């Protein structure tokens, strides 16, 4: 069975103690049959958790104003966008083991593409968003091509260069982007009656986040996810066993980019005003931090990381200048103490009690 956790990507220490834990943490549960590994949601508790989460997401816009936190709805929209980027990025970094330090570039392309498609061609929102996803997927495919030949530092610099290039083009190609002054984005109508514009956007964004996360979970446990994990663990071995590297590596980039593109479309609608400064190298690093802190190689980890790193800057806004230090220290600590992230630690705790007294 292929390890699902990011052990191999991060090089776990091969002491007997961790070896045992590794065996247990292959999936988030003690497995007795192969079928156990195929369930998306397992048991009554699993379904209850999912149902509670969904109900919570639906009720949020009505609940928040009641407790005087109505402004948090905007944060929730950004959170949905970040969750989508993180899940997509994790598919590339955590599952496939390909590094991308330029994901803000994909988000930027999605944001500008959706804005321009809606403004210039008068497309309805869903068409503009799908168009944005397709366009970013195309760029992802293009960036994925060098990934066939490049590994490690070389790929890191290529993707980083892509992110910088997108930013530079946006700053300098004023006809396209409005330059440094920015591009106003018209408000799209989602056609949900009886709701304010923010509430409508929230439902669309949260819906997209849920659906795309679900796709992510499913992809991870399908043959595609296993092919990606095989590439991460050893691309030569994967190729020998019949994984088409050309197809799966570019596919990973394209999917990851399409996720970022949808998130960009959401961000464009939320901010209603796009400027290149929203998509800098620092943003790419923040996305990277999300999946590292949450847990590389698991969809749940990406979601957790995105939620935490969206809420933190909001609650620490008084300490804004300390934020980079905090992020950096958190990343370093996380890598040293728990390379599998918060979710990995949670799984370990759960396993400890499940396997107790072993």
């Amino acid at each position, binding site marked *: 069975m292929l390890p699902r956790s990011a052990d191999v*990507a*991060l*090089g*776990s*220490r091969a002491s007997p103690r961790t070896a045992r834990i590794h065996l247990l943490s292959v999936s988030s549960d003690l497995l007795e049959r192969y079928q156990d590994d195929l369930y998306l949601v397992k048991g009554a508790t699993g379904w209850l958790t999912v149902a509670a989460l969904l109900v919570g997401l639906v009720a949020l816009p009505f609940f928040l104003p009641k407790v005087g936190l109505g402004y948090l709805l905007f944060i929730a929209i950004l959170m949905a966008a970040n969750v989508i980027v993180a899940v997509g990025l994790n598919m590339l*970094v955590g599952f496939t*083991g390909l*590094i991308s330090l330029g994901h803000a570039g994909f988000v930027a392309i999605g944001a500008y593409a959706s804005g321009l498609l809606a403004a210039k061609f008068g497309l309805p929102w869903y068409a503009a968003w799908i168009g944005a996803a397709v366009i970013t997927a195309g760029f992802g495919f293009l960036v994925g091509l*060098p990934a066939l*030949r*490049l590994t*490690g*530092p*070389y790929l*890191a*610099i*290529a993707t*980083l*260069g*892509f992110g*910088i*290039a997108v930013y*530079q*083009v946006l700053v*300098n190609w004023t006809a396209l982007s409005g330059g440094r002054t920015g591009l106003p984005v018209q408000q799209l109508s989602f056609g949900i009656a009886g709701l304010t514009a923010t509430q409508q956007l929230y439902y669309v964004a949260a819906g997209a986040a849920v659906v795309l996360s679900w796709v992510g979970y499913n992809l991870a446990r399908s043959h595609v996810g296993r092919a990606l994990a095989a590439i991460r663990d*050893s691309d*030569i*071995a994967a190729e*020998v066993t019949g994984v088409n590297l050309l197809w799966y590596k570019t596919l990973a980039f394209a999917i990851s980019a399409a996720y970022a593109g949808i998130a960009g479309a959401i961000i464009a609608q939320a901010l209603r005003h796009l400027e290149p400064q929203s998509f800098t*190298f620092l943003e790419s*690093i923040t996305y*990277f*931090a999300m999946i*590292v802190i949450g847990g590389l190689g698991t969809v749940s980890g990406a979601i957790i990381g995105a939620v935490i790193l969206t809420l933190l800057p909001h609650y620490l806004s008084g300490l804004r*200048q*300390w*934020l*980079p*230090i*905090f*992020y*950096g*220290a*958190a*990343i*370093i600590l996380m*890598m*040293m103490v728990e*390379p599998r992230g918060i979710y990995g630690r949670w799984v370990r705790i759960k396993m400890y009690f499940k396997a107790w007294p072993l």
Partner: protein
Amino acid sequence: MTQLAQYLVGGLATGSLYALVALGVVLLYRSSRVLNFAHGDIATLGTFVAFTLLGRKLPFSLAITGGLAAAALVGVLFFFFVLRPAKEASLLGKIVLTLGLALVLSGAVQVVWGTDTLVFPFPLSDTRVHRIGQVVVSETSLGTIVTGIVLMTLLYVLVQGTKIGLAMRAVAQNADAAQALGIPARKIYALTWALAAALGGAAGVLLAPVVYLDPFMMLDPFLKGFAAAVMGGMDSLPGAVLGGFLLGIAESVFAGYISFKFKTTMAFAVIILVLLVRPEGLLGRVYHRRV
């Protein structure tokens, strides 16, 4: 013709900066396979420390030495307290660690020195110029080129001509074997970190009179230097120098003749093209990987 020569001189000046940055990156990568994303921020920190020391009325040479020493110290501390405890992390894990350091350092510089731009008092002037034929060379460019070449020569002598250099090469080639032969690999790693960080700091100080001091001043040169290192081949020191100068000159010529605004975009496009043709860089060795 004069114009081209003028662009070439400008390219040589920026190129020597890129080469210095690239050398630091390559030194670390070939010895310990660490891709140091904090290189630029270590350099920025060193430059700011030098700036503060200058403000305390220290002589220029002492202040610069202090700045470089601070950069080297950060590098060594990071090696001993972060990288060594996590030594079995894979390539991706190490990248993540240095990214963390980069965030911490750039945050610290912002907190301590603020985000306003500061003017670095430098003994060489950008407005005083020398003429070589019809080509105009500013004092800073000349100083940058000369310092860059001197530092590169010193590094060459150190790596190729001394016992320490021999040990560094041995550790880079095979750390376990080197250790078995009695070379203190850990000390050599620490020394490599110090050297690389100090080289970065030197690049930062040389850059300081051209741009103003601000917490993100090294971001662009670092990315370019990094790219130059990748273009030259990550495990080749001559490759880093070649990549640095090539990138600097290409950028300067492109900015002069075609478009100033898109010079960074061009730089990365060229690098990606070079990598597509030679994935191991211009002077890098081809690895035959095994499963």
